[in-house]
């Protein structure tokens, strides 16, 4: 499938059940066309990781995911030598009596003993074309890894001292996500197309729920979305994302709920709010008030 316009991009993602606005589609389209990494920042649960999955599935490319964490180093991100295998090879050579130094070295540091980690895998040709490389939650790593990434992503090549330089025949589609638990350095952002993924509007969230939880009744979906949209306006420590809305709708579906009530909300609130302070805020009449407001808003529309 070729993508020649922003509409194509939107349709492509919609085909995978990923509903996105024109803005995000534009940025995604540009990223594919210009071969630039896409830097998505936003609150947790707004669909940043999902878009990588959707693009990979729609284009029939392999998705390679690098989950970042504090202290992530080259051994777990790029490559590592398989030392156990190398030891065995040394012992075998010794037992056979021919432990020639140069020969041993040439044999030990070959691709047979190389364990490829996500970044190196992404540089390799893959069936179906260049893979989608998802570097998830980059804000969790530290600055040294960011600096390393800067180099790897500008040339799409990795140097292994014992083997030489491995260069991607075709640059992978790179998507970086950040929850903004710290600021990622501007040098890295500058090389990417930036987009802040915001909470969706009421209509868009309805579309998302139709695509993701099609079994849910229309009336319930409307109430759920209206309630969550109201909730985002409250003074909460963590506002619920789209992922929470989808989870909640699925929970309500599993419980055979047809309409929201304060009791149902109290029972299932754990699917939407993940902090005890926030859940406590909504105890008692507070849930009833928000539900009433949400319903009033629905009738007004």
């Amino acid at each position, binding site marked *: 499938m070729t993508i020649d316009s922003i509409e194509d991009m939107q349709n492509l993602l919609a085909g995978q059940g990923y509903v996105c606005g*024109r803005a995000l589609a534009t940025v995604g*389209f540009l990223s594919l066309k210009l071969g*630039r990494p896409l830097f998505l920042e936003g609150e947790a649960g707004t669909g940043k990781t999902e878009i990588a999955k959707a693009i990979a599935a729609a284009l029939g490319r392999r998705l390679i995911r690098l989950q970042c964490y*504090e202290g992530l180093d080259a051994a777990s991100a790029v490559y590592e030598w398989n030392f156990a295998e190398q030891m065995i090879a040394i012992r075998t050579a010794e037992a056979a009596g021919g432990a020639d130094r140069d020969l*041993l070295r040439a044999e030990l540091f070959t691709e047979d003993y190389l364990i490829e980690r996500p970044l190196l895998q992404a540089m390799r040709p893959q069936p179906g074309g260049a893979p989608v490389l998802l570097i998830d939650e980059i804000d969790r790593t530290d600055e040294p890894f960011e600096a390393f990434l800067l180099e790897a992503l500008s*040339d799409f090549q990795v140097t292994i001292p014992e083997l030489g330089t491995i260069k991607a025949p075709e*640059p992978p589609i790179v998507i970086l996500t950040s929850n903004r638990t710290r600021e990622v350095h501007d040098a890295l952002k500058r090389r990417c197309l930036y987009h802040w993924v915001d909470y969706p509007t009421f209509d868009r969230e309805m579309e998302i729920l139709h695509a993701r939880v099609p079994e849910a009744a229309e009336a319930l979906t409307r109430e759920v979305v209206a309630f969550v949209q109201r909730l985002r306006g409250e003074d909460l420590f963590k506002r619920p994302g789209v992922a929470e809305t989808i989870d909640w709708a699925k929970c309500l579906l599993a419980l055979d709920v047809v309409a929201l009530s304060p009791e149902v909300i109290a029972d299932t609130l754990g699917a939407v709010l993940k902090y005890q302070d926030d859940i406590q805020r909504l105890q008692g009449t507070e849930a009833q008030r928000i539900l009433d407001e949400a319903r009033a808003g629905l009738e007004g529309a």
Partner: protein
Amino acid sequence: MTATYAPLPETDGRLPDNITHFARALRRAGLPVGPGRVADAIRAVQVAGFTERADFYWTLHACFVSRPEHRQVFAQTFRLFWRDPAFLEHMMAFLRPAVRGVQDEEQANPGAKRAAEALLDGQEREVPKPRDTPETEAVEIDIDASLTASSEERLRTLDFEQMTGAEMAEAKRMLARMTLPIRPILSRRTMARPGPLPDWRRTLRASLRRGGEITEFVTRKRRERPPNLVVLCDISGSMSAYSRAVLHFVHAVSNAKGQGWARVHAFTFGTRLTNITRHMDRRDVDAALRAAGAEAQDWEGGTRIAGAIRAFNRDWSRRVLGQGAVVILITDGLDRDPDGGLDKAMERLSLSARQVIWLNPLLRWDGFAPKASGIRAMLPHVTSFRAGHNIASLQGLAQAIGAARDAGDKPRYMAALRDQG
């Protein structure tokens, strides 16, 4: 992200010129837009085409914006520029001092501002009128008051006494002597030093030098890194004697890279929370303090500790407390917040931070009274509590922070609180 580009395709239109001008306007509005980004933007617009204004907007947005807080400035600049570039040129002259007030202030001599205010008799500067635009249109275009410095909101800013040479020397001594009250954080990253972790790679390479015989087992150990520091400083009237020393301290540790704390974030609060981190990054301590004094609007006013900490939890804690940060809270704990809720806010803060150290300069043992409800609410949620220290000087402050290894005076005061019921 390849570095080599084909030369820009020839276009007959004036679009590349306009995009370049637009980028200049953005740069003057404070966005970090370099020439590389301009080339990208032109290329991106050519790829995306511009059949629709919204597409054009988002295409440029993707290329020029890299921080959420820049989105507003971008939106405003876009709206003004693509309506009439010539008008914007004029407007920038008016907008600049507000948007980039920081840089401008740096060049101003101390006192120059007051002199100007005195001469102008507190009058507002007049908006420069655009050259070619008729008056009616200028009225129709609502000038973004949000970007201008608002005089109504200026409750009180502060001019600090400049730092003397002796104080400068003392700050250096303080930094050299300061001991940190926290253990460094063990990173998952390792380094080539003798330690408990095996270093297979170097072991194998060493053995290869001997034809495959393993003669020594090389090990690694985990690297340690200093935690980030977040300083929350009370600048209400009752704390006024201490704010200068505290800001000097924050400035000194912010600029002592690699000597203790990794990153330093600083906030002031009185009736509202103000982030002064970027001012503290300046090399010159007087300029930094002047900027901070002008930024925070609530110097020596009332105190709303609960509201300030709630605001910090909501807007900043996830962004600055992420990587094992230590919080230093400098306040007298006399909360005047009508809404209350201090204990909830403090609990949330202590759950998000690795350690909360509270320095209370005003509280002394003999003056301790049970009616201080703020103290009652805050004390259970701090890791370490220091009272009655002389932190009006840099040295006293560094000592107090350095001594916060244990719970400090917390057990004593907690016991007193229990006795009082």
